[in-house]
C-alpha cells in the first residue's frame, strides 16, 4: 500500500494524538485491578517513556514538557509535572539501549519502574521546595509528611505503572515502527 507523504504524516499524527487523549481519559478512571492504595498507573509517564525510548533528545524533552502541561491541566497546577516528565523523557532518550537494554517486555517495564521512581522523587523535591521557600504564600505538607507520603505513593505508582506499561507500549511502538518503515521505503 502506497500512501502519499502528507496523508501518512496526518494519520500518524492523529493516531499519536488519539493515544494521548486515551491516556488523559484513563487518568481519572479507576477500574478494578488498576488501583493500589488509591493510586492508579501513571499513563502519561508510560506514554512519555514509550515515545522517548526510540527518539532523540529534543523530541523526548519536548514531549515530556508538553505532556507535563497536559497533566497539570487535569489537576492542580502547582507544583508542575512538566519538570519531572521532561527529566523522564530526556533520561529515557539518553539510555544506551543498544548496549544494555533490549526492547522487550521486561526491559520496558524496568525502565518505566525506574522512571516512575525518578519522577516521584522530583515531585517530592518540588513539594519540599515549596515548603522550604519562605514567603511564597504557599504551604503544603511538612517535610516528614512529604517523606511518608512519598514512600507510599512511589512504590504503588512505580509497581502499577511498570505492570501496565506493555499495554500501552506495544501497540504504540508497533504503530510507530511501521510508520518509520513506510517512511524509509518511500525515501529509498
Amino acid at each position, binding site marked *: 500500500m502506497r500512501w502519499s507523504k502528507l496523508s501518512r504524516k496526518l494519520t500518524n499524527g492523529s493516531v499519536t494524538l488519539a493515544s494521548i487523549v486515551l491516556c488523559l481519559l484513563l487518568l481519572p478512571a479507576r477500574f478494578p485491578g488498576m488501583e493500589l492504595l488509591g493510586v492508579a498507573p501513571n499513563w502519561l509517564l508510560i506514554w512519555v517513556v514509550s515515545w522517548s525510548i526510540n527518539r532523540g533528545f529534543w523530541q523526548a524533552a519536548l514531549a515530556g514538557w508538553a505532556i507535563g502541561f*497536559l497533566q497539570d*491541566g*487535569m489537576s*492542580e497546577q502547582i507544583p508542575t509535572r512538566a519538570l519531572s516528565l521532561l527529566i523522564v523523557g530526556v533520561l529515557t532518550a539518553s539510555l544506551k539501549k543498544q548496549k544494555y537494554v533490549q526492547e522487550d517486555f521486561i526491559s520496558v517495564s524496568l525502565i518505566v519502574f525506574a522512571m516512575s521512581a525518578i519522577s516521584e522523587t522530583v515531585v517530592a523535591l518540588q513539594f519540599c521546595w515549596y515548603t522550604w521557600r519562605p514567603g511564597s*504564600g504557599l504551604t*503544603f505538607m511538612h517535610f516528614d509528611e512529604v517523606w511518608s*507520603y512519598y514512600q507510599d505513593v512511589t512504590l504503588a505508582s512505580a509497581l502499577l505503572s511498570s505492570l501496565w506499561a506493555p499495554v500501552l507500549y506495544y501497540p504504540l511502538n508497533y504503530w510507530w515502527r511501521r510508520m518509520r518503515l513506510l517512511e524509509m521505503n518511500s525515501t529509498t
Partner: protein
Amino acid sequence: MFVYAIRQWWIRYGVTTGISIVVLLGAWSFRQSNGRILYELYSQISKPFEVPQAKEKDLIDARTRELSVKLEEQRQENARLRQLIGESPKNIGEPKFAPIIGRSANHWWQSLVIGRGSADGVTRGDAVVAPGGLIGRVASASAHASRVLLVSDPSSRVGVTVTRSRAAGVMRGVGSTTTIIEFFEKLPDVKTGDAITTSNFSQRFPAGVPIGTVTSVDLSASPAPQVEVELFVPLADLEWVSVHSHEDKPLSPQSELNSEVEILLDDE
C-alpha cells in the same frame, strides 16, 4: 552570509520548530483551561456507566423529608437566637446532587471528578458535602463535569472549631483519610473523641458542617499544637455527593490556597 545561514537553518529546522511551538502552546493552553475539553469528553463517555438517575431521585426525596423536619426546628431556633444575638446565621444553600465519575488524575493531589458542571449551576468554590459531612470544594468546573479538591489534599485549608470547646484552628490534609488541625492558641481545649465542624469564621465553607473526630492530640508540636482528625466520610467508597453554592465567599484567585488562614487570622 549571516542571512544565508539563517535561511539554511530555517529550511532545515523551520517546520520542526513551528511544530514544537504549536505543541507547547497547545499543551499550555490545555493547562490554563484546567483540562476543560477533556473533562467534557470524559463526562460524556462515562455517562452510560453512571449510577442510575433513580438513585438521585431517592436521595433528593430523602433529603427533602429530612429537611422539612429540620426546617421547623431550625426556624424556631433561629428566631430565638436572632433575638439573643441579633444576627442571622449563614445558610448552606440549595443542594445539587452529583455522581462521582472519576478520581484524581495525579496521585499527589486528592481530588474527585463529579458529573455536574456550570450548566447545572456548579461554580468554582462551592462546598461539596457527602453523607457524613464536608469533603471539599469545587476547584474547577466545565459545562458538565467539575473537579473537587478534597479536604484531605495537602493544599486544602479549612477553618474549623471543636464543637465542645469552640477552640478554633485550621485543618489541612496530608494525603490520607486523616487530616491535621493546627490551633491558634498555645493550649487549646481539645481531647481525643471531640467532634470537629467547620468554623463560623470560615468564609469559604458554610458554618457548622461536620467533618470528623479527633483521634490523637499532640500539644507539644511546633510551631502550633496539632491534632489528628479522622474524617467522617469514607472518601474511597463514595458514589454521590451534594454541592452547595455558598453566597458570601470572597474567593480571590491570587491568594487562593491560603486565604482561609488569612481570613481566620484577621478574625481572631
